[in-house]
């Protein structure tokens, strides 16, 4: 809908525009002011001395302020807005569509869910532009807490990552349970691999796995999408490439994908989701609401909700609740459950 720039000619003001010569049209009725027939043409231009847009700008600002002022009118104990920065994979699973309305009813807090890459979410927290986080990049999260930007970090749930690949499996990795070794084979075969490339939790996990494999992924076979998980999966599917994904997004999209699970069940593929609140000292942060959000995710009710979330639909759980557990305990639970199917298949 953009107007072509060429439309704007640098035609001089004095030129006669053809369509303006409509002789039949009389000038509109004028005010009963005494006619000033001798007014020189120059006066036309002086009619614009005082620009009309100054009061309009003021009106715009007033409008913006007025809309900002309304909206804080509930008398629940907490109230206010809570900006919850989360990752696209959490949002795309639909879990927050269940959790957020429940939390809003309980607390009277108006939650604004902002789904961005984990890198962006952590940055929002660092600058105090969010109140709480729900992310899955444990190393980066620890660094954030250590730097004093976030507090009250709690594990909420986990699931796992898996490596998907095309049917013909050019790097011959299918059925393996060693993600790093599989990546090394993919690199050696120079089979196409699509990376998130967006600093997200999944991307950080992928980079950690490449490091574990002792490979620096470089070359035309390694392609960075720079997009969310769903879009990256679609790209990998269309290009028949290998890709690392979280299980929730994979299950949600599996109907539309030809890619198959190639590698899963490696303890290194654990995907931990945590919540935390942004350090209360930062200006404008709604700390009471953020603390309430963290407590809410740890409640039995929410943990049950997570356990059963879309379980019937996919025939298996999307997330395993893990409130109150340490990362160590969650990792042990995961390797116990992950190794079992590995033996069955292997």
């Amino acid at each position: 809908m953009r107007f072509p720039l060429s439309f704007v000619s640098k035609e001089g003001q004095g030129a006669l525009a053809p369509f303006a010569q409509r002789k039949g049209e009389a000038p509109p009725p004028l005010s009963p002011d005494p006619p000033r027939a001798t007014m020189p043409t120059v006066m036309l231009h002086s009619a614009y001395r005082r620009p009309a847009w100054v009061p309009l700008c003021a009106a715009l600002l007033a409008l913006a302020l007025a809309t900002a002022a309304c909206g804080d009118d509930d008398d629940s104990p907490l109230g206010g807005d809570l900006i919850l920065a989360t990752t696209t994979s959490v949002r795309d699973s639909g879990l927050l569509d269940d959790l957020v309305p429940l939390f809003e009813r309980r607390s009277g807090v108006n939650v604004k869910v902002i789904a961005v890459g984990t890198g962006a979410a952590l940055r929002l927290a660092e600058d105090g532009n969010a109140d709480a986080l729900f992310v899955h990049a444990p190393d980066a999260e620890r660094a954030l807490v250590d730097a004093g930007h976030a507090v009250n970090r709690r594990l909420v749930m986990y699931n796992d990552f898996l490596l998907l690949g095309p049917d013909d499996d050019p790097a011959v990795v299918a059925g393996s349970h060693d993600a790093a070794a599989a990546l090394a084979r993919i690199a050696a075969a120079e089979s196409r691999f699509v990376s998130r490339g967006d600093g997200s939790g999944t991307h950080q996990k992928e980079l950690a796995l490449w490091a574990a494999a002792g490979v620096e992924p470089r070359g035309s076979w390694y392609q960075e999408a720079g997009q969310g998980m769903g879009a990256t999966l679609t790209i990998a599917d269309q290009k028949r490439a290998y890709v690392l994904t979280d299980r929730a997004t994979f299950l949600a999209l599996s109907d539309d994908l030809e890619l198959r699970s190639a590698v899963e069940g490696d303890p290194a593929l654990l995907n931990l989701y945590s919540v935390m609140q942004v350090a209360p000292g930062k200006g404008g942060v709604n700390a009471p609401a953020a603390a309430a959000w963290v407590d809410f995710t740890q409640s039995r009710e929410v943990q049950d909700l997570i356990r059963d979330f879309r379980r019937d639909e996919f025939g298996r759980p999307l997330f395993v609740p893990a409130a109150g557990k340490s990362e160590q305990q969650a990792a042990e639970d995961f390797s116990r459950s992950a190794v079992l199917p590995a033996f069955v298949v292997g």
Partner: protein
Amino acid sequence: MDFLWDGIREAVKLWARGDSEIIEITLRTLVIAGISTLIALAIGVPLGAALALKRFRGRSPIVALVHTGMGVPPVVVGLVVAVLLWRSGPLGGLNLIYSPSAMVVAQFIIAVPLVTGVSLVAVQSLNPRLLDQVVALGANRAQLLWVIVREARLGLLAALMAGFGAVISEVGASMMVGGNIAGETRVLTTATVLETSRGNIEVALALGLMLLIMAYVVNLIFTSVQQERRFA
């Protein structure tokens, strides 16, 4: 092709059911784009007329600035507005980020150069003698502006459609400053992105179709107003 067909079927199903969410999103899209276009008109038309009629030092750089603004990518506008409105930004105290007001501000900034630029051309192509005559007949400033609006209405409606079309189809800025929050700042474009990334291609297509139909209906109304008297 299956997707496309399913999308159309899904769209019809959603409308037939009178799905309240999709109607709500559609109305919100219209209201936000409508308000920002109206404000852009209120400022862009007088500004364009002034730039068309006045000669002053520094006019050319300003006109060039307007023309550059006509092509500025919405994401850049979104980024700048977001940085300004974030709590850590200079206007953070207004608490506007992730609200419909923030979207209006961003969309206004996108629309105003388009409206100004097209208005400028519309007014500039009026016969200057007509305006001289109107002034000579004793018109005051408001009356002169009214004559300009009347005479240049074809071009000014084109300005309106350019501005409205840009903001209603824009996704980058709305996503950044609005945050695509359900029930608050989710509009048709951001909802389409969301449903695509969730793998609900049919719903995404339905939303996209809704946007197209709405844009068509609105433009049909504008166009019929614009063309009405042309042949009368």
